[in-house]
Each structure stands twice: as C-alpha cells, then as structure tokens.
C-alpha cells in the first residue's frame, strides 16, 4: 500500500467520526491493516484525531451524548484490532494515564459519568468504567487491579456524596491514599466538599475534569503531583 492510500484511509476514518458513521470505523481500520497500514499511524493520526473531533463537536453543542457513546464504542472496537499488532511490534499504545471511574454506592445516575468517560478516552486515557452504584472498596480494588493513576467518583445527591468520602477512607485504611489522584464531581459536589473530604480535585464540568487529570498526569511526568 502506498502512503497516499494509507493517508486516504486515515482521512476516511476521521471523516467517519465527524459524520457520525461510527459503525464503519472498525471496518475501515481493518481494511487499512489488511492493506499494510502502520498501526501506530492509524491510532495516532486516525482514531485519536477522529474521537477528539467528536469531543469538540460535543463541546460546541453540535452533537449529543449518543454520538459520544458511539464514538467511544467505535474507538474500543478499533483498539481491539490494533493492540495485538502494536504489542507484536514491541510498541505500546501511548496512554495519557489510567483512570478508574464510577458513580458511588446508592447512586444510579450515569449521564455525567458517561460524558467524562468518553472525553477521557478521547484525551487518550485508558478508562476502567465500574458503572453505577459502586461501593467504595470496588473503586480501590479496581484501581489496584488495573494499576490506575486516577480514581474518579461521581455523586449526584447530597445523600450519596458521603460515599465519595468513603473512598478516601478506604484508601487511608489500606495505606494507599498517596498512590492515587482522587477527583470527584457531580450534582451537589463542590470545591468546598472536595477540600472537606481531602480529595485531590473537583471537576464541575466534564471538560474541567479532563483538564485537571491531564494537568495531574503532566505533573507526574515532571516528577511531582499537581
């Protein structure tokens, strides 16, 4: 395959993201691989650019949550195709960081958390979504099992906010508090609440949450915590 052919397919992948044709993306990736495209090129210049474009459309109010969810699924299906080839080439996918995320115990609200999940993926994070109604211990166990950098906990109601504090308590009890950056958000949470429970950060909006965890990962690379 010529580099021109490869670039044409990369462009098609990006266009498919932008036009909302998510069901063809994995097939385009497979076609490009079959024709000899470099997995790294498809990932960095196709999938990543495409999913970020959807994130931008969402931020501008041009598309809505379904597009975000479908773009994340298309990304995931494509990553399944690319990961073994990257490993075979002794390459690893460049991850911005690893996040364990969920809605806390007693709370079944998922919308805000799902938006953050998709935007994290678009920003290059590996995301382990624990779902809703997640006990504090599961956040900690999930973070340990997946060697996460960040724990993100969403709570919509005043009566479920204390479960965010429970995550901090469980980390303290296991002597693991310093191992993870804990960011909270949702409904009634606030910067004051974050300070009270000794979490590391508060994301009022999804975009703010992404900016904060990106800044944290940057600070890690520089050798310190944000």
């Amino acid at each position, binding site marked *: 395959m010529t580099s021109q052919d490869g670039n044409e397919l990369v462009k098609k992948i990006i266009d498919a993201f932008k036009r909302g044709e998510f069901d063809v993306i994995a097939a385009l990736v497979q076609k490009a691989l079959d024709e000899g495209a470099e997995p790294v090129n498809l990932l960095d210049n196709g999938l990543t650019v495409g999913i970020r474009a959807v994130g931008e459309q969402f931020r501008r*109010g041009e598309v*809505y*949550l*379904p597009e975000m*969810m*479908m773009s994340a699924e298309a990304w995931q299906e494509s990553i399944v195709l690319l990961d073994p080839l990257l490993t075979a080439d002794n390459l690893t996918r460049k991850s911005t960081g690893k996040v364990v995320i969920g809605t806390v*115990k*007693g*709370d*079944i*609200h*998922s*919308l805000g958390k799902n*938006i953050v999940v998709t935007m994290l993926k678009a920003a290059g994070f590996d995301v382990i979504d624990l779902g809703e109604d997640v006990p504090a211990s599961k956040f900690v166990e999930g973070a340990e099992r997946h060697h996460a950098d960040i724990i993100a906990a969403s709570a919509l*109601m*005043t*009566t*479920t*906010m*204390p*479960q965010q504090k429970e995550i901090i308590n469980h980390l303290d009890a296991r002597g693991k508090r310093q191992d993870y950056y804990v960011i909270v958000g949702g*409904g*009634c949470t*606030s910067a004051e609440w974050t300070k009270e429970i000794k979490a590391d950060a508060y994301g009022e*909006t*999804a975009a703010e949450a992404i900016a904060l965890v990106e800044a944290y990962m940057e600070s890690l690379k520089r050798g310190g915590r944000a």
Partner: protein
Amino acid sequence: MIAFRDIVARALNGPIISERDFELKLFVPTVRRIAKEYGVEYDPEILVPADDDQADQVWQAGLEFFLEVGVYCPDTERRITFTRDEVMCALDQDPGPIMFGSGVDRKVFPRRKPEDNTPPWCSLGAGGCAVSGEAILMSLVREYARNPSCNSITTPSLTRVDGQLIVAGSPLEVEGAIRNMVLAREALRQARRPGLPIVNGVATAVHAASHIAGLGYGIGSTDAMEIGAHHEMKVNFDSLNKVTYTLSRGVQIWAENGVILGGIAGGPATTAIVTAAYNLLDILVLRGSIQHPFPIHFNLRTTTSRDTLWVRSVSNQAISRNSWLPVANLGYVGAGPATKMALYETAAWITASVVSGGSIEAEGIAKNAHIDFTSPVEPYFAAEIAHAVTGMDRQEANQLVKALLEEYEQHLDDPPLGVRVQDCIDLESGEISSDFRKIYRCTRQEMIDKFGLDFKYPSMYL
C-alpha cells in the same frame, strides 16, 4: 386503563433488550427518525411558538415514539410495551377533577390550555434543595405558606440527622425522611395552613424504603408523592415499589421527569418529543395525577437556557392540548439567592410554562447544587409572575421571554452564586435583608416599567 399489575407483569416478562441496545439501537434512532417524519424543528428565535399545528405534531411524535420504544426496566432488562388501543384508552379515561389539600386549602388543580385565563397552580418551595439544619427547613416552609398564592408545598431536604450526614440507603435516610415530613407538617401548622398539600412527598428520601417510612408521618390522601422515572424512559423496581405503596395508601402521585437536553434524548426537537412521551409514561406506568417535568440542559444544569425554554413551551402546548394529565413545571435557575439574575431566569421559565398551558413548581435556585443556597423570595416572585402572565398571548410571551433572556443568557455558564438563606433571611421572623429587599424591589419594578407586567397583588416583601 390497563391495570398496574399488568405493568408489573410486563416489567417482568416483556421483550428482553440490553440497556445499551435500548439506548443506542432503539431509543436514539427512533426519536431522530420520528422528529424528521413529523417535521419537529427548533427555532432559537421563537421560544414560545404560537403554532397549534406544531404543538400537535410534537404530541403525535411523542405518542408514536412511546408506542415504538416503550419503557425500559433496568432491573429485568426488559421493555414494558403498549398497544395503540391501550394508550388511546388511557387518554380517553379522564379521571375528572384532580384535587389536593384539605380544609380551606383544598383546591382543584386546573387543566389549562395555551393562553388560558385560568390562573395556574402555584406549588412553591425549594425543589428539593438540601439544607443544613431543621430550623432552616421549618423557616422556609413557614415562609412558603405565608404566601396566599401558594397552592402546595415542595419541601427542602435535610442533609443531617442529629449532626450526622445522611447516607443514602442507611437508617439515617429513613430517619431523615420521617423527620422531614414531621417538621414540614408542623411548619405548616405554625403558618396556620395545616391543610396546605405537600406534593413532593419525602424530599429527603431517595429509596423506596425511606419514601414508605416518610409517608407514614404526615402525608395523606390530600397530599402527593413525587415519583420519578430515570434517564430516559426507564423505570426501575425502586420506582415501581414506590408506586405500589403510594397507590395502596390512596395517595396521589406527581410523576417527575427531567429530560436531559444533550443527553440520550439529544437536541431540542427530540427532547420536546421525549417530554411529550413522558406524559404517557406518567399516566400508564407511574400512575400520576400530575406530570412534573423539568427539561434541563446537560452542561448548564438549568432549565432557563434558550433551548430548554423552547422545549418547555412546545411540550407544554403539546401536552395541554392533547392529554388530560396536567403539567406542573419544575424549574432550576442557574443564579443563586438574592441575585437579579435568578429573578430574570425565574420570570423567563415561568412565562414560557404558564402561557403554554402549564402550572408551576418554583423552584431550585443556584442549580440546587449548593446546600442552603435557597430562599423563599424567588418562589414568591415566581407566583407573582405566574399570575401576571396568565392570559397573555403567545406572541407577546415570546417577546417577553426573549427580552428576559437578553438580561442573563451570557452569564449562564458562570452565574453568580448569591448568598445562603441564613445570610439573607431572618430565620425566625422571615424578614429579608435590606440588600435582598432592594434587589427584589428594583427587579419587580423593572418588570412593570421595562417589561410591561401588571402584578395583580401587593407584595409581602416590599
């Protein structure tokens, strides 16, 4: 109408589908196709449309959407579906006058049409805002009840019991739910309006167990329980348990649904269609006496953005022209207590609701996201606006809503937080601070001088 036990049977035995497929393979493509088929389009320049045909198209689109998609039960991963005959039968069976309250506060909830001259029902309160203490809750409820225009109460919710933070699902939630009701009822007695109905049931309760506990301490057949669906078109066992118990106690239901604009429901046109469809869910599944919607912006977390105001108006018109189940609109403003912006926002969403055929429940302030950031003045002002715009035609209302929007739209992404209730109200006497009084007086006068409103009654806050 189909029996409630059949709803439960369908939740247990209906067609199986995963939640993901319900959302992305069924809900999303169906609502988008139907919006195109019925030509439902959002016009950002006409926020209160005067187009009966468009309203009826939104209703028909909502009905077709409901028939195709049904209602999802996450606990069984099944759909509760209905035939056209079942839905039409439910719409035909108007239960007659819907009444709440007792004694002198017993009233008929009006069924209004767009541009109706009948005053709307004014349910006043905190929209469930969390407060830090029992004294604050009681003070607020006394103040809501002091307003003669108040037809029912929506209480704040407690965050602590005996100094401990209430944790969902714990005994503290059960105790908080009971205490919430006992305190609210006593506050209404102190205001000499013991028969004023409480319509949000047990604000502090999240789970069915707490709802049921609170119901035993001050909620009767003249009040109402607020029971909600989940985003979007989903009803879980917890909600069905609440319905089961509430119906068994002979208590009426305000069926709550806040469709999220920007969420699964998508943009304004499809959000309006889903809001109309919820009217049918509320009749058939939640067994509501009232539909209690709050179409809310996913990012701004208010019901006062340009697009949510349009959704509010269009869906109210669609429902009020076609269904017997009346609407009590719940609103959330972005700005906090004692700010001019909160009053502008209030005036905008109340106007869009009342002129479009709805009644009101006012309101959540500062997005209902901050403990104690609430006050009785904004709900009072909401009732004043509701009466002032009753009978206004839709073209005039459209101009008014757009003019109000100009005053605050650019600040919606970073609204002023305002002040806590204890910093702007004397909790014992109910006197408002001089700063707040100035803001209220100035904005109320502006409504008369600049926006041409005619307030029907003297204000108790002047």
